């Protein structure tokens, strides 16, 4: 049974997104030496079949994405999505080179994105765990580079499996220094939401 989300609960989820990704983006800034800013998080509900307006990239454009399983007191999936040009900015900063196209996307480039995802998700979970006292563990990320819509729907469909509906907390982050925009999604198992709201006392 999925609890209904009133305004207070939506606000709480948004605030958790903010605090969590605040920590994650600080870690990314430390790693790259570039200052990143957050956009206000959105809480999106996906019911039977409607894919929410998520991650404003055109459906067939090339994106790079990761998804990591999170276990513990607030289980779900954490996913990052970078438009190709934004991934190139990360590669350029972190390894001083970039692939000219999909065919040059080797293991080195993949591991850079996986490592960025690991560090950011780790800090996101740490921030949430400090606030709630939850124990949270993440598994290593899985990587994909393909059409935006295909990557996104593969993430969402798997998270939706076995659930009545899907909740997505989306946060976008960018930097004025580069043509860069990244998206983070946390897709909690909806059956476990009450636990979170209980800890927050709402």
């Amino acid at each position, binding site marked *: 049974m999925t609890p209904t989300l009133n305004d207070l609960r939506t606000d709480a989820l948004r605030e958790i997104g903010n605090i969590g990704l605040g920590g994650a983006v600080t870690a990314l800034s430390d790693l790259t030496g570039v200052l990143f800013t957050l956009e206000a998080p959105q809480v999106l509900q996906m019911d*039977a079949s409607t894919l929410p307006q998520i991650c404003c990239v055109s459906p067939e454009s090339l994106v790079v994405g990761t998804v990591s399983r999170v276990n513990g007191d607030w289980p779900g999936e954490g996913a990052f999505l970078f438009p190709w040009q934004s991934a190139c900015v990360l590669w350029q900063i972190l390894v001083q080179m970039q692939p000219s196209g999909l065919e040059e996307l080797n293991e080195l480039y993949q591991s850079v994105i996986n490592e960025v995802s690991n560090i950011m998700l780790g800090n996101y979970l740490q921030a949430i765990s400090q606030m709630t006292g939850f124990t949270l563990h993440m598994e290593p990320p*899985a990587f994909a580079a393909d*059409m935006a819509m295909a990557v996104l729907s593969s993430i969402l469909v798997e998270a939706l499996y076995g659930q009545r509906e899907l909740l997505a907390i989306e946060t976008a982050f960018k930097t004025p220094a580069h043509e860069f925009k990244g998206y983070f999604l946390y897709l909690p198992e909806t059956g476990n939401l009450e636990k979170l709201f209980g800890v927050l006392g709402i």
Partner: protein
Amino acid sequence: MATVKLAGMGEIVWARGAGVLGCIGLGSCVGTLLFDPRTQMAALAHVMLPEAHDQDSFTTPGKYATTALPALLRVMEVPPALASRLKAILIGGGELFQNRSQTLRIGERNVELLHQLLRELRIGVVFEHVRGTSGRSFEFDVATGWIKVRTVGASAVATDLAAALGIQRRAA
């Protein structure tokens, strides 16, 4: 150029005699298209998951393999007993995330189950572009029987299915 009717996740679209049906950005989802040579009608479901876990299969039957095929037959007004005259096209069912630790293999299971259900209905699959590791978009022209499949980093591949589907093109 005919208007393109795109099936979003879980949706069903159809056209008779003319029109273009398609899906954008299929990952593990499978675009499942049935064609009726007798009525020249095509119907397409954007299947997301193998089987239903809850009641919403009544409101969005196109979402699940198990409910999508009966729903397509209803739209096409073909009783299951006569379904063997239909032809099927399957696009999608890829696994984009290769090293996903707790992988549910949803793409593979979608394709497997759709094959099984189509076999039970004695519907032949005339064309498929499934499995593998890439996302796909496609468009199917109901009047001409041409299908165009797009993947990232490659040019679109067009295939003429008119003969396989029993489409008689009018002489130009």
